[in-house]
């Protein structure tokens, strides 16, 4: 019933529907990569380096003869995975701290909000780059996800806190408390489901933000190891061939833009469909 109404309103946003379709295609391409290309993304073929697009190599080959389409499809697995998991890590931190601050109030609230202010006034990019020197300037996937999550929870914490501040006064919370539910149960089982709408919206934007941040770090030479095909690494490694073989740069960037704009459109439509602002 509720879901039908939300879907009805979401569907009115044609851009978001198109975004969802585009995202599904990109994710499907990444997931089904072995079925879509016969090439191994890491297989070197120096005799066929920097080839222009042909039916054999629809997006040409890079400077080491690797098939660009294969690298793009397999790279999508990494880039999408990093974006989504970084969002999950950031959301877990943001939801936990934000809900405790909003529900408990008082000193906990003050401490969490202070921490948020502190993180927001730190020059995040510079600290992140310094932190990346711990692992010789490149971070393995799990560490990168952790870093991005660590710097990307503040917005959600603020939103969740505000949501909890108003929800904790409602009757169903009082009823749950009267029924003997502990803090953890009230916060996560009773209130959290009612605060999902703004969390979902924020999460959509966080996925896009994390994907862009990871690509930017790749470009600066402080991202994932160069042998891992990510969309950021693909573009960076092709930078020197921008004039001779522009498709190597254009294709990955276009896919990143398409994916990120798709999640942004979806987030924007969710905000409308779930009526986040109006409540």
């Amino acid at each position: 019933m509720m879901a039908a109404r939300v879907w009805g309103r979401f569907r009115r946003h044609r851009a978001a529907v198109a975004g969802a379709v585009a995202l599904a295609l990109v994710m499907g391409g990444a997931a089904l990569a072995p079925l879509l290309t016969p090439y191994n993304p890491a297989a070197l073929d120096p005799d066929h380096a920097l080839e222009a697009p042909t039916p054999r190599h629809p997006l040409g080959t890079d400077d080491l003869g690797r098939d660009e389409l294969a690298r793009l499809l397999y790279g999508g697995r990494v880039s999408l995975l990093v974006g989504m998991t970084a969002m999950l890590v950031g959301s877990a931190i943001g939801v936990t701290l934000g809900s405790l601050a909003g529900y408990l109030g008082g000193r906990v609230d003050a401490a969490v909000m202070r921490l948020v202010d502190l993180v927001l006034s730190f020059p995040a990019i510079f600290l992140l780059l310094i932190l990346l020197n711990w692992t010789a300037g490149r971070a393995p996937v799990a560490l990168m996800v952790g870093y991005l999550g660590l710097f990307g929870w503040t917005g959600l914490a603020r939103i969740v806190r505000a949501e909890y501040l108003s929800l904790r006064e409602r009757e169903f919370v009082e009823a749950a408390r009267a029924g003997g539910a502990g803090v953890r149960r009230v916060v996560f089982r009773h209130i959290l489901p009612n605060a999902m709408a703004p969390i979902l919206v924020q999460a959509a934007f966080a996925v896009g933000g994390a994907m862009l941040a990871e690509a930017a770090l790749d470009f600066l030479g402080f991202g994932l190891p160069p042998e891992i095909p990510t969309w950021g690494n693909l573009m960076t490694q092709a930078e020197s061939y921008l004039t001779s073989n522009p498709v190597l740069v254009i294709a990955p960037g276009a896919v990143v833009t398409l994916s990120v704009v798709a999640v942004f459109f979806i987030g924007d439509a969710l905000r409308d469909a779930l009526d986040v602002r109006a409540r």
Partner: protein
Amino acid sequence: MTRYVLQRAAQAVALLALVSLVGYAIMNLAPGGPLAVYMHNPQVTPERIAILRHQLGFDRPWYARYVVWAGALLRGQWGDSYYTGRPVLAMIGERLPATLALMLSAFGLAIALAIPLGTFAATHKYSWGDTALSFGSFFAWAMPTFWFGLMLQLLFAVRWRLLPVAGMHEVGNASLPDLARHLVLPALVLGLGSIASWSRYLRSSLLDVLSQDYVRTARAKGLPEARVRRRHMLRNALIPIATLIGLDLHALVGGAVITESIFGWPGMGRLFLEALNNRDYPVQMAGLMMSAALLVAGNLMADLAYVALDPRIRYQ
């Protein structure tokens, strides 16, 4: 008001101290360190490394070095680069003007474009142009900055040969028009995100102001529409934008690192990246502190701008 400013200034100093401590700790606790490059060099004897280690203070714990570093900084001494051996202040002095030129141009470009675009979108709500601008903003936010830069290079510099690919000056040409030509693409790349956010924000801010009583009053007085828009609507709608602009320094400072890398711009951002790769701690700290100071100043200005522009708000 004075008390408020003093209080905020004290907070800012405390914050800078904390940033420096955290940054220094992370930097110095990293495995490897500035002397690691010499470890496998047969030309450098272990005795020589020991001397260097002592000279740079690496035989003492990091917090002891931090105290020395902070004490020197308070006396205005930024130290010498580990890598070039030159005073850090001199190295920054060479690079800072380039970064400031880039940031100011991006900033100016963003304001010059965001205000008319946002005003147009608000006055032509739901029109074809408004929709196009809304879509454009989403794409502006979704494009990887460096990809946008590379695409601009490909089109404007390589294909159409309208503008230089990279750098700040032609060799032997330090004229202002030459600098301006080199600035166009980097400033656009750095400013794009701000153009999109500020114009979108101005649009919604203008739409809020539209239904205010004072706008109706101004119209009822029979003021010309242009005057109502400029004096009564735009002025008030710009108040929240002032805050946004202060907070956006964040994006501008971080974006400068990427933009400078794309366009080979000889600024602070690239100096910082080089220092990272060389484990040049004094230069890294200088870059960190300057970006932190800029952020703190931006936040402070955002708050003060609010008070200065909106007489309804008074800090106690």
